[in-house]
């Protein structure tokens, strides 16, 4: 469903051109559970932004669900983000002031859906937060906030969930719970889940690990996920270029 061909991204700051991605090719099939890993500056954030339709490549072709995205207009990209992609961020990125239920409604508002409350309530129940619907972010724990974010990501029934360091701000036990939710979504609902992380423990919950360095893919390996339990505390594979 995700097809990247010769994707390059160049940032220009004054006279200096920074090549964040070098003609990268990547294909992710429908229903896959993939981790994109790499150290800071490897280009994984840029790649996630491009896959998430938040950014467009300088050159190359990106198609999502058979739709060539790299040439679409700003509002067409917004529509794709709204309908086909769910984002989960390290820092949750919930809107202040809104209750959990209202957070989950936001994508539906932009989609112009009626009957939003009911759909949003169901999504919250799916992540086990049915009883906390009227709490604001400040009244929720980190794990609960991330669950709200996940509910918000899945409420529009997207085909792809992009998670950027989804457990980066959580303790080990809570991380495990969140991982289970992602695995369930991937297995039971067939949603494609892509993690972008530098944490090998997180990566080991997926079935495929793509390593990135200096804007290029250095390895692409299958993995047997450690389902339902935290990964061993010592990393099985030395983390590639551990973060500073």
């Amino acid at each position, binding site marked *: 469903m995700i097809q990247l061909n010769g994707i390059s991204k160049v940032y220009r700051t004054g006279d200096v051109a920074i090549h964040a991605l070098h003609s990268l090719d990547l294909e992710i099939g429908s229903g896959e559970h993939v981790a994109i890993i790499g150290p800071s500056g490897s280009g994984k954030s840029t790649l996630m932004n491009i896959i998430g339709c938040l950014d467009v490549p300088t050159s190359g072709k990106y198609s999502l669900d058979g739709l060539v995205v790299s040439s679409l207009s700003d509002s067409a990209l917004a529509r794709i983000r709204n309908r086909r992609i769910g*984002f989960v961020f390290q820092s949750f990125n919930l809107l202040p002031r809104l209750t959990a239920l209202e957070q989950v409604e936001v994508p539906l508002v*932009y989609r112009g859906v009626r009957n939003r409350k009911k759909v949003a309530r169901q999504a919250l129940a799916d992540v086990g937060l049915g009883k906390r619907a009227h709490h604001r972010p400040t009244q929720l724990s980190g794990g609960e906030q991330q669950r709200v974010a996940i509910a918000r990501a899945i409420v529009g029934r997207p085909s792809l969930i992009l998670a950027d360091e989804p457990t980066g701000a959580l303790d080990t036990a809570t991380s495990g719970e969140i991982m289970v939710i992602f695995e369930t979504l991937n297995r039971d609902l067939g949603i494609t889940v892509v993690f972008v992380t530098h944490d090998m423990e997180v990566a080991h919950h997926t079935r495929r690990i793509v390593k990135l360095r200096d804007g290029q893919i250095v390895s692409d390996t299958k993995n047997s996920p450690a389902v339902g339990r935290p990964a061993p505390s010592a990393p099985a594979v030395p983390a590639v270029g551990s973060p500073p």
Partner: protein
Amino acid sequence: MNIFDTIPIAIRALAANKMRSMLTMLGIVIGVGAVIALMAAGQGAQKGITDQIRGLGSNLLFIRPGKPEDNPTNSPVGGTVLTLVLADAEAINNPDRYPYIESVASQVFFDATLTAGGESLTASSVTGVTPDYQYTRNHYVESGRFINEDDITRKGLVAVVGANVAEQLFGDVDPIGRTVRLTVGAFRVYFSFSFLVVGVMERKGATATGDEDDLMLIPLPTMQARIPYIRNPKGQSNVHQITIKVTDPDKFGQAKEELSALLRERHGVAKDDFTIRSQEDLVSTVNAVSQTLTVLLGSIAGISLIVGGIGIMNIMLVSVTERTREIGIRKALGARRVDILWQFIVEALVVTMLGGLIGVGGGVLAAKLANGQHLFGRDLYTAVTPFSIIVAFTVSAAIGLFFGIYPAFRASRLNPIEALRHE
């Protein structure tokens, strides 16, 4: 996205910063309130003046000295040359020749200092009149008597005072039978006479030619006999105005034509050296002046509305910066540029329209409270028209739109990636 979905978002965002929203709104409230109140004052003045002019009777003609172009503001003594004399009025008062003339009254205006007991009124209007004044001007005595033919022939030192003059000089005491000292002077030459008060005029209120309640009326010949500079070089007595009551307003055209011919002949001139105006001419002149006044007052108040608008823009720009991350999140969740644009425009509109509504309420209330109040020695009248309410409210909404667009545009153009990274 439905535009109505942005309204609760806007209200929530404004409620999150109540103090700031209130202060921002206050600028618009004051602006709109000022526009409504000041336009009400302008329109009230206009309505008051035109009502008073019409109150004199709808069938009056006024002849004043001076060419029309010399006296564009129609001031009673504003003409450069005093060309009208008492004999002109006598010639006009010829019902056989001009059957449409009902009555004719001449007036001379000047300012004098009036004193009675310990009280003194400077620069009071004194008018020299004839007994026809009451009927012609439709203004009668309340108590005592008016100036009669006997006073005219005797050139008597008697006076009829306006309601305000009576009140200010004599207070609760009945002025009839008491004396008022009149002092008039120029170039260090002063004349001073004592007048016996014989009557008090009914209350009339402010008019186009000043407040008739502030007048003191004395016999015209007395004035001409006592005050030398009223006379012209030929020894004839100038008059400042001849008021003519016509049987039917339809005769105005004919009257203007025939009386102009008579006066030209009498003055031996080819071009008019006088001006004939009807009541309605006066009304339209006054209307033109007071409409200018209303527009001027409204514009001054409008400036404060613009200042309020700048306040809105300022706060909206701050708000966009503060909420950069929120904008990034919304974009990631599928908000298009136009959705973000509308979100911030609607927020600015909610502030200005709510402020506009409160301002309209405040302005109308202020106008109602001020109506009929005595302020700076004058009665203040206000008239709130639906037009001014619509104008003020529309302008406030337009200001919200105008000053809201730029911050909203900035918000909509934010790069979602950078916005998401923003702390």
